[in-house]
């Protein structure tokens, strides 16, 4: 069922369409479509075009250096990698992280969630959502938002900046901070720093609420369209707290199938490989993880905001919990499997992050000096967090000399690999099949991918964005037509 369209039966007579790279996602990826004379879709794939072996790069390095080193893995998600690696190193030094340090790390993580979700929603996705997927391409970007909706654009910038300030004050620096160290933190939050952050938090919560309202309005204006765009059912995986609450920093792994039935629950993530395997496919550098119990065909799943909001039993902050209930009840639960519902779930999480920041800022533990601990040295460490884009796994082995000998990373975007491919295929069938291709139609494919907020930079360990190029080729591979979209969204032939 799920792998229809992954591989065409007779590729030799088909024309190939390449969307490369997909724009307004972080990093560099491409989509290829194989279509016949009548523009019927026979194959649709979303793949990663470059790969740098970070796992090799860290070999031989001292373990305490890794949390800082991994921030170079991805220019978009340095904080997530920093935290996941440090959790692995906590395990290696046998530390029980002091309560205050745990809270400071959570504060940093919430800053990251806030800034990342704000960036994605306001900069990368709002142009599609507010103007339409096939609106004039010159308008469909952040500049278009600034012109048409200046207030929304300003709030987006404000939310993002606030998140970055939280990161700066907890990590010591705007980027590549060193606040988090194995066993805890090297600094607390001073009263001045706290007061500085407290000043704006009410505004940040209000803007986050407004963002949830905005996506709700957009979504419910055309509920059928939003529910059915790139629709399919799947399993979901995420961390949950011991009591089932949403917890983005720590917890056990929970997976539920497409009917909401539990596959596994409260799994100790340090044994993740007993539950998840990764498959390699010849046509993509990105691996395809699957839940072992369900096998290669049925075992794929989604991670990220939609998975987390669906999987948790409740959200432990008041406003976000109320929004979660509204979301779950919407259309009798019809949004819970929808590709575009990722945006909605993401904004609920952003609100949760803002509320959590407020709660943490009022906690006197943040001024504690009891910040590090250590215990008995282990040779293996696993750290897992719920990064903005989904479950992030860092796994290391060290030798007796304390050097990294093996590293395995499963990033959020890799967990979502099959799911993004599935979304591409659904959209290709729904909107492109039998049609004369236009830029607007091809953008539908990108909209589906963008819903996941993939970080191809993480997945490929290659940083940077490039313009989009769409090529139509005939069966013999000859170029029929080429369309180039510059990074500013302008198209030329």
């Amino acid at each position: 069922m799920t792998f229809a369209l992954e591989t065409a039966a007779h590729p030799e007579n088909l024309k190939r369409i390449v969307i490369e790279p997909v724009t307004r996602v972080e990093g560099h990826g491409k989509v290829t479509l194989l279509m016949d004379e009548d523009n019927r879709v026979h194959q649709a794939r979303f793949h990663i075009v470059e790969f740098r072996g970070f796992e090799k790069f860290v070999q031989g390095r001292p373990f305490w250096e890794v949390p800082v080193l991994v921030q170079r893995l991805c220019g978009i998600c340095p904080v997530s990698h920093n935290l996941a690696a440090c959790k692995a190193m906590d395990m290696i030094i046998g530390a029980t992280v002091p309560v205050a340090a745990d809270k400071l790390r959570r504060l940093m993580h919430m800053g990251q969630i806030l800034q990342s979700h704000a960036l994605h929603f306001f900069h990368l996705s709002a142009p599609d959502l507010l103007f339409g997927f096939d609106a004039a391409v010159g308008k469909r970007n952040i500049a278009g938002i600034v012109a048409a909706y200046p207030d929304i654009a300003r709030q987006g910038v404000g939310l993002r900046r606030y998140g970055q300030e939280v990161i700066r004050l907890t990590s010591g620096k705007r980027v590549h901070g060193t606040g988090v160290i194995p066993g805890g933190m090297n600094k607390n939050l001073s009263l001045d720093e706290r007061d500085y952050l407290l000043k704006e938090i009410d505004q940040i919560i209000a803007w986050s609420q407004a963002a949830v309202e905005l996506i709700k309005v957009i979504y419910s204006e055309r509920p059928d369209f939003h529910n059915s765009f790139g629709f399919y059912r799947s399993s979901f995986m995420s961390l949950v707290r011991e009591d089932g609450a949403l917890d983005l920093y720590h917890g056990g792994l929970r997976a539920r199938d497409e009917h909401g039935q539990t596959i596994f629950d409260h799994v100790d993530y340090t044994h993740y490989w007993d539950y998840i395997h990764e498959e390699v496919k010849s046509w993509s550098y990105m691996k395809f993880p699957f839940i072992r119990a369900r096998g290669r065909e049925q075992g794929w799943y989604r991670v990220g905001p939609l998975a987390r909001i669906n999987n948790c039993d409740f959200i432990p902050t008041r406003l976000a919990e109320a929004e979660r209930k509204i979301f779950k009840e919407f259309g009798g639960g019809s949004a819970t499997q929808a590709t575009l519902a990722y945006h909605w779930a993401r904004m609920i999480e952003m609100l949760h992050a803002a509320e959590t920041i407020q709660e943490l800022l009022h906690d006197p533990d943040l001024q504690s000096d009891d910040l590090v601990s250590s215990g008995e040295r282990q040779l293996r460490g696993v750290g897992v967090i719920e990064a903005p884009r989904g479950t992030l796994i860092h796994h290391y082995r060290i030798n007796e000399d304390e050097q990294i000998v093996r590293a395995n990373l499963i990033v959020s975007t890799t967990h979502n690999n099959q799911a993004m491919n599935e979304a591409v295929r659904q959209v290709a069938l729904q909107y492109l099949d039998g049609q004369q291709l236009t830029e607007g139609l091809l953008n539908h494919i990108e909209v589906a991918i963008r819903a996941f907020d993939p970080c191809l930079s993480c997945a490929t360990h290659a940083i940077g964005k490039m313009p989009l190029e769409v090529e139509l080729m005939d069966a013999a591979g000859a170029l029929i037509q080429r369309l180039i979209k510059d990074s500013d969204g302008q198209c030329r032939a």
Partner: protein
Amino acid sequence: MGALVMSKAITIDGKSVSFIDGQTIMDAALAAGVYIPHLCHNPEFEPHGNCKLCIVSVNGRNMTACTMPAAEDMVVASNTPELDSDRQALVQMLFVEGNHICPACEASGNCQLQAAAYYLKMLSPHFMHFYPPREVDASHPDIFLDLNRCILCELCVRASREVDGKNVFGISGRGIGTHLVVNAASGRLGDTNFAVTDRAAQVCPTGAILIKRQGYKIPIGQRTFDHKKISEVQMEPVKRTEPEHE
């Protein structure tokens, strides 16, 4: 105070600096509070003249201040745009000859090479990176040796020989192949009697000799060069950092 003692003097950048016999230009400058950029010089040890950062113009000829004895009436120029641009090029070469990834390095903020680069307003490495393959040696229980960051200043060599009386380190090879070696049959630090309390464990100006498990414990903002320039720090009386024990 009367001018009773006939003291000898040199001029550095137009300022009269007195010296006593046997002092180098660097010694006299340091004593008088005049900063001349330097990396391989540390007043505790015999000068070596390796890094050439201390080049000054003496009566019109370029010399290394750390090795050149001061002599009556020398006219020394140090703080000139030409010399600073030579110094910047030297630092840039040090960067490309090794593998220095400042944002990830635990010595960042405490590193003299990095501080010298800031002081000399270096904005980019300018030259092509060599990306040389360099060894790391983690065999010692308390010390991590990362030759990616070694600038061959020989301070550890001198400290181990002159202060610790151990001779743990040496220099081998020539030209671009010059490298630091560990004096053990195996070549491994773990097979020497090197100790974390040795002076040689404290003198590395970069992050090549590191005390294990201490990385990043000092928050950004409290590191040596976070608020002070290298010119200020190196003019302070020598301060010995005692290693932390777990």
